[in-house]
């Protein structure tokens, strides 16, 4: 594939930092080499010497002095090498990307930072963006300054509708726009699993149809998948990722540890075609330099201690927890809201997407009156590409709230709507 077509001028302008390149010389250098090119501070002067983390299962991660240096010193931009290897192995194991040899991976400060850099790499002001609608607010925040021309694609209880996608793109003939750079859609954004805010997932056949359409129109697919491990059901029944069917090498996939290990550590990772991941690496090189080193080391040591078995045992436990939360939420909703709202059963994640058919727009109801009824949720308008249009939906999160409070919340919500 010709990737330069997808890049903004700013992204094309990016050059590697010579000093970082020179640091690579160290790898092949003789032990006699005196290296005075890097601007590294002396890590011996950093005040933390060692550390220890106790896990909830009682085991401990020891950060001995040498490991503490890895936590505290500058590291390579693509990521702490042991963690990069572990994540590449995990990705290969879970997705077996068909063109793995042409792909690369970078650890980012949360998956959203990767998404932000990917979008900044490809979107110029006024560009088209094809996206699921409703769409995650974080993505809309990234795109807002670019005033994109959205092609919002509606969905149902099985996610984005391929027919709607085809219809939105039908004003162009595939063979005429495949290589065109300006004034054509080039990017497609999708949350395939437990979509934020709708809570639903795309089944396999839809993914294949969507991939085929993206291929026809030569779109890059941004597969934003932070709820991958929080899908309900057996892992072996998980539908295949876009990455796993990526025969063209057009998918950039965003993974996150925020829902299963920690959100505050700020660790996510991006997998994609080498030329595109390289652009993201160059951007990171002159901005945050790399994802926080201690966070990367902790995740790496944890994965090492657990092994595959321990890791999947943990993700199964997280999934089971959110499933219980979902069930409690549905019970509360059925008890109080069955006459007032409609919803699809979430297939993963932490959100319930409620429709209020009798109300034209939930925005004012929530922002002006919800506090008086002691319940807050997010009005659906926040997730729409065109925020001037009314929206009958609202998003309730069931991640942290107790079953008692879910009951109270739904009761209060029923009063609010009435």
């Amino acid at each position: 594939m010709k990737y330069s077509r997808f890049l903004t001028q700013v992204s094309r302008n990016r050059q590697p930092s010579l000093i970082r390149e020179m640091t690579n010389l160290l790898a092949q250098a003789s032990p006699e080499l005196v290296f005075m090119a890097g601007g590294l501070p002396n890590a011996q002067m950093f005040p933390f010497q060692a550390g220890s983390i106790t896990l909830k299962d009682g085991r401990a991660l020891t950060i001995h002095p040498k490991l503490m240096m890895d936590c505290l010193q500058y590291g390579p931009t693509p990521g702490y090498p042991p963690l990069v290897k572990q994540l590449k192995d995990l990705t290969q194991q879970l997705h077996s990307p068909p063109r793995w040899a042409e792909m690369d991976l970078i650890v980012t400060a949360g998956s959203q930072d990767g998404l932000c850099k990917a979008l900044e790499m490809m979107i110029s002001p006024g560009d088209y963006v094809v996206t699921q609608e409703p769409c995650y607010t974080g993505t809309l925040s990234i795109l807002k300054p670019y005033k994109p021309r959205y092609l919002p694609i509606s969905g149902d209880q099985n996610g984005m509708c391929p027919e709607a996608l085809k219809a939105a793109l039908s004003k162009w003939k595939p063979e005429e726009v495949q290589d065109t750079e300006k004034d054509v859609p080039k990017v497609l954004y999708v949350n395939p699993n437990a979509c934020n805010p709708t809570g639903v997932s795309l089944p396999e056949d839809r993914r294949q149809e969507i991939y085929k359409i993206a291929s026809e129109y030569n779109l890059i697919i941004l597969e934003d998948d932070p709820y991958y491990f929080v899908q309900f059901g057996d892992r072996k029944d998980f539908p295949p990722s876009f990455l796993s069917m990526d025969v063209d090498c057009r998918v950039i996939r965003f993974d996150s540890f925020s829902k299963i290990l920690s959100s505050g550590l700020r660790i996510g990772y991006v997998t994609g075609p080498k030329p595109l991941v390289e652009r993201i690496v160059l951007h990171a090189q002159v901005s945050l330099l790399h994802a926080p080193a201690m966070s990367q080391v902790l995740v790496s040591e944890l994965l090492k201690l657990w092994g595959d078995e321990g890791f999947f045992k943990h993700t199964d436990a997280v999934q089971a927890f959110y499933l219980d939360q979902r069930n409690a939420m549905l019970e509360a909703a059925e008890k109080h809201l069955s006459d007032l709202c409609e919803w699809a059963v979430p297939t993963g994640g932490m959100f319930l997407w409620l429709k209020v058919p009798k109300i034209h727009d939930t925005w004012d109801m929530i922002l002006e009156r919800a506090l008086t009824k002691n319940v807050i949720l997010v009005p659906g308008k926040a997730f729409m590409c065109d925020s001037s249009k009314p929206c009958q939906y609202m998003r309730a999160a069931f991640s942290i709230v107790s079953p008692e409070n879910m009951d109270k919340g739904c009761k209060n919500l029923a009063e609010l709507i009435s």
Partner: protein
Amino acid sequence: MLIACIVIFKYMNSKTLLCIKGANIGMMDYSKFISKLSSRRKPSCISELRRALDNCSPSLVWLASGMPNPEKFPFREMTVTLEGGKKLTLSKETLSAGLQYGPSHGYLPFRNQLKRMVEQWHAPPRWAESDLIVTVGNQDGISKALDMLLDPEDFIVVPDPCYSDFLCMLSSLAPQIVAVSVDDQGMRPDILQSALEKAISSGSTGIPKALYLVPNSCNPTGTNMGEERRQEIYAIAQQYDLIILEDDPYCFLQFNDKYLPSFLSMDVDGRVLRFDSFSKVVSSGLRIGFVTGPPPLLQGITLHMQASCICPPMLSQVLIHELLTSWGDEGFKKHISDICQFYKEQRDAMIQALKTHLTGICEWIVPEGGIFVWLKVLHLSDTSAMLLERGAKGDIVLVPGREFMVDSTKPSPYMRAAYSCVTPEEMMKGMENLAKLIQKEIELQSTHT
């Protein structure tokens, strides 16, 4: 070294404002500095909803934010051992804070701590109208500040030579660059003035927006900008209405008693964005820096952070906060004193190695802080090929001066050496190797001419 630190903390009373115009009572118009793209950034709807929490009843059922449940995070307890053996155990609440999403502008106790320190060190004249945000390393703050300020046709003023990563940032944004030559104190005011005049009369639709400098132990030249020079530069920034980007990662690595007032400390107009870093004194890998300045400018950076990394790494912030709390002012001063002692000895060993092997071959200014020496080779016009193609074989690697020049096509006889991580023995060996490398290069050049 303790004396230097005491001087730092006593500085706040010194306010000699020789050339700077009287205090601007009103607020600057910041909207003219914001790029078109940045002006379209908006806070997320969910953060607006959070403001509802300010006056809510305890029976409010909060179903709005998509925070993951921290009960499922596998970490239970964390202890770190500090130099000297003291142990810091994070409380349950603190570790919790370290593992969950936090505010985009930084962990509140940490921000408050940093604000107290900034007020103490700089006593900014417009402190009541200033704010402070935490960033993912100070360089991310600078990168986002440039994204916020520069439309493609705008001008940015930089010293020449300049920190290479900053030039890298500019090479992608491609604004118009006003390069200002330096002397042993940094940017020359006369050249700055004439370069700005030229930019303004160029007929461009863009405006000179900002001026970037590293006032202490500048990367790569290692020079410090004197107080009077700083005031002259500030006055010129006033005259041309520029934002000053004060990048100061080496402020704690100063070896002598002469502490120099920051641009923030003389900022009567509210035109300084100051970028501080913990990378040289506490940790580079934790990725924590902070930016101080006028809220309308910090807002643009914060909104971009909100959209990208959501918040600075929480565990890193929590750890540094606990460390600074455990140290108190005295402990911090002692740590800075120890660091300065170490790097001063490194510098002295470096100068010794230079004198031993490179007298008559190179020239250099003795740095009064930081980690770099800027060397000029006397009989070569350019060092790039020598270092990049033959340096590794000669067992010595330095950065060629061209890497730091605004016009990297022109030859440069300079090189930057870092003395932070090499031992005195390695420095001696390295400079001996360098001398041989240069001699070989001179012979190579003369056989070609």
